[in-house]
């Protein structure tokens, strides 16, 4: 019997009896009391973990060995369960509690939820795959996922279809069981067409049951977050928790480049030259398409419009800018005011639910809303044909060796590194000295380097700002300890940011 020789003085913790399962769906919230410092520490560690999951997901192939090793080492370093065959109730407890804490921080907006769900699903996938076949079956049964297998005759009848639809899966043979599952329960497999569909049912080989489980996990988590959001007001009224939760969700976004500081510092006449000098390739492409076609579709307007907001265009300037362009196309002034002005005001939070939308980060541009026919948005390093990308780079006077370096990075799926290389080559520097994660960041760094014109400040005030905000609320007396708490946390999370900015992935 092992006794953890740490701060805990308990001889045997009855709570560890709860943690007999290597993996769970997080159906039940933890019911114990914990100290505020443990609360914080657990939350920050899990956030670190999820950020590693995110970064690894973008720069590595998700089922590859590199990915597995990276996650395993991170889990180990942060004291989370990393080997499901070893009984580690303490770590499982941390896993359980930290998950629920982050739910509180990440249930508030659609974006936060989406991010949280994505990382938790990826983490879950990694851990589920680490289970032995026996553990997997146990998991299925314990969680009431009873799916039906198909009969031998049906298998024989559908032989060809079954074999031809499971190419993504290794080792699929007709000897194994096939499960017949309603397609709504196997969305990940349906989406990627990795499964045979007939009359609304997906025919899943035993080895692919992971996808089903993930789908289930995702759905449950999504519902749970919606419920959590409703009880948030009660949680926020606890002054010890509110600053902490705010910091957690802000440190995800980190610098959101919402451009509040920079409004009015750019003039419309500068845009063309700025596009050539300081815009990342994606925005340069959008700007060019806009100038040439006098039009951009919705996806392009959002990506480019929000970027412009981030570099400092005001609403009035934006309206003028887009109108000037569209009028030269097929849109007359009236139609612009009716159809497109609304969209632009919406971007600035002046319509609809009045959300002030933030410019898209690289992650968002790369991973969501891929461009289709007639679109110019997306990330050129991710979404363009290598041939066309090469031509474009050559057109923008990148040296042949530079082009090759970039193409190599693209091949390895390091899109942000490719963009950074583009930055280095076009600005004539050896090392960009920053880790690119946002188009507006590219712009700011470029302007800094070029000694540029207006006062473009780096937004490092996020922790202090939140502190001010939370200090502004609530009775003065209770503010004292909370302010100290939040400052401490601000430091912790600021460190988190810089650590990640330094990560080369």
């Amino acid at each position, binding site marked *: 019997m092992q006794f953890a020789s740490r701060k805990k003085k308990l001889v045997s913790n009855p709570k560890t009896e709860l943690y007999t399962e290597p993996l769970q769906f997080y159906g039940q919230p933890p019911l114990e009391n914990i100290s505020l410092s443990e609360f914080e520490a657990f939350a920050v560690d899990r956030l670190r973990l999820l950020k590693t999951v995110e970064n690894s997901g973008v720069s590595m192939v998700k089922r590859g060995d590199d990915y597995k090793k990276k996650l395993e080492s991170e889990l180990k370093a942060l004291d989370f369960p990393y080997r499901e065959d070893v009984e580690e109730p303490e770590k499982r407890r941390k896993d359980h509690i930290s998950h629920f804490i982050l739910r509180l921080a990440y249930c508030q907006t659609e974006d936060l939820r989406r991010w949280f769900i994505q990382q938790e699903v990826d983490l879950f996938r990694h851990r589920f795959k680490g289970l032995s076949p026996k553990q997997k079956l146990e998991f299925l049964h314990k969680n009431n996922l009873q799916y039906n297998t198909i009969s031998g005759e049906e298998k024989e009848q559908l032989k060809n279809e079954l074999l*031809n639809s499971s190419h993504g899966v290794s080792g699929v043979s007709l000897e194994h069981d096939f499960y017949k599952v309603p397609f709504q329960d196997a969305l990940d497999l349906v989406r990627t067409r990795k499964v045979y569909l007939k009359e609304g049912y997906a025919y899943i080989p035993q080895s692919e049951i992971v996808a089903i489980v993930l789908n289930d996990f995702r759905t449950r988590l999504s519902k749970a977050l919606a419920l959590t959001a409703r009880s948030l007001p009660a949680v926020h009224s606890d002054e010890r928790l509110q600053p902490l939760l705010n910091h957690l969700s802000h440190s995800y976004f980190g610098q959101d480049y919402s451009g509040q500081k920079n409004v009015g510092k750019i003039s419309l006449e500068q845009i063309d030259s700025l596009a050539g000098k300081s815009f990342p390739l994606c925005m340069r492409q959008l700007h060019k398409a806009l100038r040439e076609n006098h039009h951009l579709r919705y996806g392009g307007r959002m990506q480019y419009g929000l970027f412009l907001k981030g570099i400092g265009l005001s609403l009035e300037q934006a309206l003028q800018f887009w109108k000037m362009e569209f009028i030269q196309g097929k849109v007359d002034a009236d139609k612009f005011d009716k159809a497109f002005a609304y969209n632009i005001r919406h971007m600035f939070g002046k319509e609809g639910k009045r959300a002030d939308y933030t410019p898209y980060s690289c992650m968002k541009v790369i991973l969501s809303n891929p461009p289709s026919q007639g679109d110019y948005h997306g990330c050129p390093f991710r979404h363009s044909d290598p041939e066309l990308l090469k031509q474009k780079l050559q057109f923008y006077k990148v040296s042949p060796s530079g082009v090759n370096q970039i193409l190599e990075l693209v091949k390895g799926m390091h899109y942000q590194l490719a963009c950074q290389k583009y930055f280095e080559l076009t600005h004539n520097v050896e090392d960009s000295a920053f880790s690119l994660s946002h188009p507006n960041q590219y712009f700011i760094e470029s302007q800094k380097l070029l000694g540029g014109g207006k006062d473009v400040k780096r937004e490092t005030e996020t922790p202090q700002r939140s502190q001010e905000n939370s200090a502004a609320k609530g009775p003065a007396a209770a503010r004292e300890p909370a302010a100290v708490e939040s400052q401490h946390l601000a430091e912790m999370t600021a460190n988190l940011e810089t650590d990640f900015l330094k990560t080369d992935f």
Partner: protein
Amino acid sequence: MSSSDYDPACLPDLLPLYYRRLFPFAQYYRWLSYGGVQKSYFQNREFSFTLKDDIYVRYQSFSTQNELEKEMQKMNPYKIDIGAVYSHRPNQHNTVKSGSFQALEKELVFDIDMTDYDDVRSCCSAADICSKCWTLMTIAIRILDRALRDDFGFQHLLWVYSGRRGVHCWVCDEAARKLSAAARSAVAEYLSLVKGGEENVKKIVLTDPIHPFIGESLSVVEHYFPQYALQEQDILGRRESVDKVLALVPEDVRRELQQFFQNERNPEKRWKLIKDQARAKQTTAKKRHFDKEIMLQYCYPRLDINVSKGVNHLLKSPFSVHPKTGRISVPIDLKDLDKFDPFAVPTISLICEELDQLKPEEEQTKSEDSKEKENEKDTAEKRKNRDYKRTSLAKYVKHFDQFLDGLARSWKGELLRKSDLQKEF
């Protein structure tokens, strides 16, 4: 048959007539109330109207068919969109606690727009269509209809002509209406093969093994390809088109084909050469499918995923008028799909004119009817309900009726089940 010349400036005069005498309100209500299986289904449905001068109003909702009729006759919308069924009456959404007003259900919808094919059609571009490129819609409907039925198990599909350059599909099964946004997105992605925007030359790459869905879709495309692509679009005729096709073929094969083409002008023979090359390469390490990839890139349906994803997405309503062309968004009968001609679809001016021409005849038959006095009160109603039957709109409403009959059979089962549960006798 040519439609009366439609002039958008006449819409303000035509619309009132359309909404008073021709719009099939009874069928429309029958559809959207879905047999009354779910309480308030119709009442909680969002409609949006585009009025004169591009005024757009959302969150319209109605308690009864009568109210819908009266409102539409009052507002005379230029365009009508149908949205989701919400948790509360949309026209009261401002009174609902924020966060509680949610879109709950909606038909699964698809929108195929001809402009998305501009890179592969030579006859038209942008908003134009012609009989040559319309085949693309025929192919799209065949492929998607089969997949939605055979693969996904849906049964109640309503295909509608959008009025100008495309088609919409409304999947009305209960299971479809209850799908989450994630599920809709998954279905749409399953059905998407053509990937890539301006920056991609090659938009489809097939790898072995070929999924049964792709196999089925290819069969459909292969049926239409020779006539549509080789003849009508002449993709292997003119120099630029040939170059575009060859750009989709691996470099080594391209050079060989370019040489062959020097001596072979016939498009069918050229196509055979391409196919032969693909087969020839299959004996080496990896199979090559560039012939199939070409067919798919030129013909496979291109859907706008964003339309299908959202539960709350608003889509143009069937029987809505298209303000630019005047054409009515009519349901398409798949039994006559190959004969469907978008230019034969009635315009609002045509059917209004047909209505005007009927009046004298109608007066005659009425006076000959001896039961006239008894039914006087009803005739006004009946006349209104029968009016569309005497115009070119008739066959489309009839088809819609048949579609609704099919749907109704599914409601009966539901209602029975429900009353059993409640032990109503």
